[in-house]
């Protein structure tokens, strides 16, 4: 054994990714340490232990479970806070206190809670995996109890339980397969996390915008329901804050947060704040639509690798109910690093920066698990994946960023220069891109981006020749770019109103800033033009921080428009 890697001699048959338990005898008790087979060579299995391996010895017993690393699926997943192996952390805390204790595993779903089941299928119905047997209410959602995803082929419903309260382990249906064998079905099913869930009718193209209420995202670099995007950036550039904002305001049914190998403190902020915050769509607590998978940096590294798969499996499960699910992973680089540690212990031939050579295909496969699908009943559901990337030294030219950029549909690159200048969100407006549809017509967006680009070129030039050496026209272009940046691209996450701009308000704002940027101004000198843009910026920021239902909302807008009107009239 070496670190968390153990080599086990076995007899009988075992499978890649099968779960086993290393038995640690200590003071007369046995602790079972969960492990996963990562390589099989002859009669030897290499296993990564998901726990601290201290005190294990050569000769200790390992028990194989016969199943792959799996997630429990069923009602009661929402509102939960799990570790990467789906142990409920609050319950662990109740049992073990302040510290995580190795070898302690709890059921992901509570076995006592009874759920009010309403049957939907009837005896004689012929069904396949993923089709609905009945429903239970889970918060505001109608949670579908489905034919287990692992069942292959067509099944005939023999019996469905009558409407009543059942726990997740009670039988709610009996299905007969083609050979006449009966299968008892409960509300609880298991799915191997490393395999995609595919029991839907077909995959669809992501088309509809998933609004996040972050202006530079929705307007300039939009994300689609069922799409994928990444947020690379150096530390402190605002990746986590951007995801926190998105997790609050994104127009989706369910959010799965995978806190993967970063600070525990940041999860705590979500943990403590979400129950108090209201979902802008339903008015209910945000926690009601959230699942947190929390495998922060000091928790076992091998479980960190599992955590993103657990998260995407839970997201796919709710997609099967016709819901739009958003998975936010912070940070995918930590997952990649966990793979690197694993690969190093297996003494595989390393690729670039010692990452395994297959890193790229693993990243691609992970993002491929996103998507909008048409289910077997004709309804649609989606999983959208947004992952942060933490590149070494903030340099995007590294394996994880590059592999991710190849497969995602949108790129929100955060720049150190912007975050240093406190221009948040620090999404670089010239480097970032998106293949998805914006809340505003593409040509209009591109027109403003062109001015922004010219403005930035002028700014570069001005550093050399000074303001004196810049023509008034160029100078105004520069100021127009600065205006767009200051009032539209920058958004103060800590101002209640400014933090979230709904799509219709974005359209309204965009029209005003567009007018300011496309107008011709007959300014004679730079001082006057700077004063004018300063005034417009100030008025705009005041407007941005005014609630849409406030009495002065309309008048503030008019003030801005009048200012622009007056300045351009003399042209």
């Amino acid at each position: 054994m070496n670190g968390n890697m153990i080599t086990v001699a076995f007899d009988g048959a075992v499978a890649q990714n099968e779960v086993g338990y290393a038995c640690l005898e200590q003071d007369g008790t046995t602790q079972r340490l969960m492990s996963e087979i990562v390589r099989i060579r002859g009669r030897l299995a290499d296993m990564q232990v998901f726990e601290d391996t201290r005190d294990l010895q050569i000769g200790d017993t390992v028990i194989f479970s016969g199943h792959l690393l799996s997630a429990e699926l069923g009602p009661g997943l929402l509102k939960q806070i799990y570790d990467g192996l789906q142990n409920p952390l609050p319950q662990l805390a109740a049992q073990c206190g302040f510290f995580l204790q190795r070898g302690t595993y709890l059921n992901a779903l509570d076995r006592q809670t009874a759920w009010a089941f309403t049957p939907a299928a009837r005896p004689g119905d012929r069904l396949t995996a993923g089709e609905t047997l009945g429903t239970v209410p889970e918060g505001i959602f109608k949670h579908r109890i489905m034919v287990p995803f692992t069942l292959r082929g067509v099944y005939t419903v023999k019996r469905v339980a009558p409407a009543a309260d059942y726990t997740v382990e009670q039988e709610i249906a009996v299905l007969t397969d083609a050979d006449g064998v009966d299968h008892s079905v409960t509300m609880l099913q298991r799915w191997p996390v490393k395999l995609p869930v595919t029991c839907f009718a077909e995959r669809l193209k992501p088309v509809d915008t998933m609004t996040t209420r972050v202006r530079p995202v929705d307007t300039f670099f939009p994300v689609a329901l069922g799409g994928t995007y990444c947020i690379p950036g150096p530390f402190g550039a605002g990746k986590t804050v951007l995801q926190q904002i998105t997790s609050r305001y994104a127009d989706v049914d369910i959010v799965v947060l995978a806190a993967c190998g970063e600070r525990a403190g940041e999860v705590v902020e979500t943990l403590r704040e979400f129950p108090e915050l209201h979902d802008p769509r339903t008015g209910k607590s945000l926690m009601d639509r959230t699942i947190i998978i929390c495998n922060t940096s000091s928790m076992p590294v091998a479980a960190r690798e599992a955590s993103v798969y657990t998260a995407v499996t839970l997201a796919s499960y709710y997609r099967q109910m016709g819901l739009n699910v958003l998975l936010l992973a912070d940070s995918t680089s930590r997952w990649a690093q966990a793979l690197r540690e694993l690969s190093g212990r297996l003494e595989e031939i390393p690729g670039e920066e010692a990452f395994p050579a297959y890193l790229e295909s693993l990243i691609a496969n992970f993002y491929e698990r996103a998507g909008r699908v048409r289910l077997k009943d004709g309804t649609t559901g989606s999983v959208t994946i947004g992952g942060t990337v933490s590149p070494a030294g903030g340099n995007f030219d590294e394996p994880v960023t590059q592999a991710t950029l190849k497969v995602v549909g949108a790129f929100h690159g955060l720049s150190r220069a912007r975050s240093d200048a406190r221009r948040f969100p620090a999404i670089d407006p010239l480097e970032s891109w998106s293949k998805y549809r914006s809340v505003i017509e593409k040509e209009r967006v591109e027109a403003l981006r062109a001015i922004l680009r010219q403005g930035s070129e002028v700014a570069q030039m001005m550093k050399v020749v000074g303001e004196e050496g810049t023509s008034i026209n160029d100078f105004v272009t520069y100021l127009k770019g600065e205006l767009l940046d200051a009032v539209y691209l920058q958004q103060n996450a800590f101002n209640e109103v400014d933090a979230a701009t709904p799509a219709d308000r974005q359209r309204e704002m965009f029209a005003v800033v567009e007018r300011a940027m496309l107008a011709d101004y007959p300014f004679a000198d730079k001082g006057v033009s700077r004063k004018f843009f300063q005034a417009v910026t100030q008025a705009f920021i005041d407007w941005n921080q005014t609630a849409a239902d406030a009495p002065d909302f309309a008048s503030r807008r008019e003030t801005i428009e009048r200012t622009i009107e007056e300045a351009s009239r003399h042209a």
Partner: protein
Amino acid sequence: MHKVYHTIDNLAGSVITLRAEGVKYRELAEVTSRAGTSLAQVIKLDGGAVTLQVFAGARGVATDGRVRFLGHPMRVHFSDALLGRAFTGSAVPRDKGPVLADHLIDIGTPSVNPAKRIMPRNMVRTNIPMIDVFNSLVESQKLPVFARAGEPYNALLARIALQAEVDIIILGGMGLKYDDYLYFRDTLEESGALSRTVMIVHTASDPIVECMLVPDIALASAEQFALQGKKVLVLLTDMTSFADAMKEIAITMEQIPSNRGYPGDLYSQLASRYEKAVDFEGAGSITILAVTTMPGDDVTHPVPDNTGYITEGQFYLRNGRIEPFGSLSRLKQHVNKDTREDHRTIMDAMIKLYASFKETQEKQSMGFRMTEWDGKLLKYGVRFEREMMDLSVNIPLEKALDLGWQILADCFNPDEAGIPTKLISKFWPKK
């Protein structure tokens, strides 16, 4: 009792290999040879072959050295008797005090359940305006000081330790110059703080493996004090030496390096130490301040880079001052809303103006024309640097805020500072 082995098969760097039975992973052993006796830890088990890392290094260990396994992992003494004492990275007394061999605790304890963590809420006052006003330090925060070698970072740590109202100070020295160790000891002694201090110090001339143990011993003791309800401040200096020790050992173990020779798990290794910072509900807390020297003054070097991704902000120490740009306390917003109503405003306004001053300074150096406004900024910048940034300034937060208003009023008109009217009428000093 425990069997003694007499044959060592392999020696390299600080690592030895021998054949032994019934050995547990991470178990400690005592290695005795002509060079003396040293502790060692099991780092690999391969069939009957056991690989040990010898704390004092394998130099001088001969193939006929004796190895006795102790049956347990690394443990250190914990009690109030630690206070006022100094130890090496093997937890051997560095002072003339007695050996403490009882009340043993494990080092390298499991991590705190995130569900048990609470939101940070208490400001740690340092009387350094660049911290208190602009980037408040918060109890349970983990914060590095990024600096070039030669900057007065140890003096800064010592000063914060003395100023902060904490119950226990734990100093973890890694690759520390002996003089710096004496400096810490004398400074703490003179101010009477030594009696609430524990020092775990690896100096530059001590064995490299001991360097790696320092944070674990320091933090394990800190955790025990915190569980007893104590507010603990842990000072680590220098974490780059810690990372370099890991690098050196990884290379002798022939591990594949990921970036500039550092092992691929550098991030996880650093994180498992820094994440020990915590506020235990109903008990005490651990706050960590850690010097991270930047080789080549380069923040993208793997050690500061990985650190920045882990810690809750960073202080840049440059030319003896805490830089306002780049320095960040990610937890400040949890505390600076409850200090004084003008705190955030002064913080924002003064930094914005200082940024403008920097631009003006640049313009000036390029020979561009200076306006009246530029003149005001130049005057402001000089005063800001002298009266706020200089590390010799030692005033409480409230005095610093008052001083901020005074500097603004001396340099600008009220409507030029970018401050909301409401606060201007309340705080702007009358001439």
